[in-house]
């Protein structure tokens, strides 16, 4: 009789613990998904701004054709998706391209003075900042999630229950990517 009660209690406690651990993993995974959609929103916003910027600069510096093509391609690659690491690589390329475009624009005082261009520039700078912020959050929750599913005892059942590792939003090989949680 006593033995039966003990066994039942142990089973119930184990079941509760497992349920709690499972919910914990689900919560962490949801956080990574929310973090990813944060990045996605900002990437889309930047992609919407870029054609206008390119048009504005084209009017003054039509000879920079190579740069325009590069930006257009990077923009398409960001839009095309293909996983966090690939998107991050494309996004970094796009950031660099936009930076060069602003450098080109420096040579045309009339362009810089135009209200439309100034507006675009400040919107884009703001969006770049927001992408950086969203990236920091996403990478930190991915790191928490990845280490949660890899530590004992979660590693015994996380794979069976469909918890897969997530890629960092970073251009390097995702295994070695260092999330930006340290102070700079």
């Amino acid at each position, binding site marked *: 009789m006593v033995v039966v009660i003990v066994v039942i209690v142990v089973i119930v406690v184990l079941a509760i613990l497992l349920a709690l651990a499972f919910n914990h993993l689900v919560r962490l995974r949801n*956080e990574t998904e*929310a*973090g990813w959609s*944060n990045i996605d929103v*900002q990437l889309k916003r930047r992609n919407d701004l870029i054609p206008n910027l390119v048009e504005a600069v084209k009017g003054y510096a039509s000879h920079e054709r190579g740069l325009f093509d590069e930006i257009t391609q990077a923009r398409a690659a960001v839009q095309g998706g293909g996983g966090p690491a690939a998107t991050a690589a494309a996004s970094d390329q796009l950031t660099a391209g936009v930076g060069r475009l602003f450098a080109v624009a420096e040579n045309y005082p009339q362009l810089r003075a135009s209200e439309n261009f100034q507006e675009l520039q400040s919107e884009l700078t*703001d969006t770049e*900042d*927001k992408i*950086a*912020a*969203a990236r*920091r*959050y996403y990478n*930190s*929750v991915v790191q928490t999630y990845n280490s949660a599913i890899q530590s004992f005892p979660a590693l015994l059942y996380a794979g069976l229950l469909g918890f897969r590792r997530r890629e960092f939003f970073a251009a390097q090989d995702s295994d070695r990517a260092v999330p*930006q*949680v*340290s*102070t*700079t």
Partner: protein
Amino acid sequence: MTLREQIRHNYLMTVLLLGFFGLLIAGVAGALYGIYGQGAAIAVAVGGIAWAAFSWFGSTGVVSSVTGARPVTKQDQPELYRIVENLSIAAGLPATPEVRIVDDPAPNAFAAGRNSKNCYVCVTTGLLQTMDHREIEGVISHELAHVQHRDVRLMTLVAVLVGVIALISDIALRMLFFGGRRRSNGPGDLVILAIGICGLILAPIAAVGIQMAISRKREYLADAGGAEISGDAEGLALALRKLMEDPREIRDTSKSTAHLYIEGPLRKASGPRALLGGMFDTHPPLEDRIAALERIGGFTLPPDGEPVATAESAS
């Protein structure tokens, strides 16, 4: 100690302190039982729980009217608004909190609200005037960490618990003086009575002490969390030093909101409060907070007045 370890450590301490709270309440209940017997203990306990529920559900929405904060839009304060927006994204908050401003020359800031969806951060006009972009970022990241850690709710809960303990002890002591105690049966009963009375007098004092200790722990936690959100522990440390050097105190703060500010508004301890060595302060000394940030960020602030060596443009 890394940021995460620091956060975990502080979290543990808070849980521990809440545990002490539970023990304290159990102790008061025990004292009541010893003095009056079962009936009175149950009656007071039920009354206490009812009162706790009442103040818990009635406590929301009071803060704004007390502090006199007014909302601002993105057009009014584009720089401040952008800082809040970007750091909210970095903190992973579900929405950007409302931004509010208090007209006060003393630099200070606080966050308030029921939960992370329904909250606001507030800074004083003095803060905007004295601090640069990077320092404001530090301050805002500290406030958003409070939001992220659900501190406002926790501190409201703690305040309610303190109130309950004070109320029960008070009622019990009054009942003692005005009769109603069950008849004593011998010397053993007198000892229980003496212990009970001491307990009832000491419990409210201990409760306030614990409340302040939890509040101080939450400040360290918010500093560490803020540094993680902004990725710039040094910026927050610089902001704290500026607060330390500024002699002005924010006007018009009541004790009920003191724990919300980034810098304790009632920090000029004097008289009996100073003698207790800060036991009843809501905030730890700023020197200690800066030192903690230096430890987790792995940097040392240069002596005052000199430019910061690693001053990167805060993004």
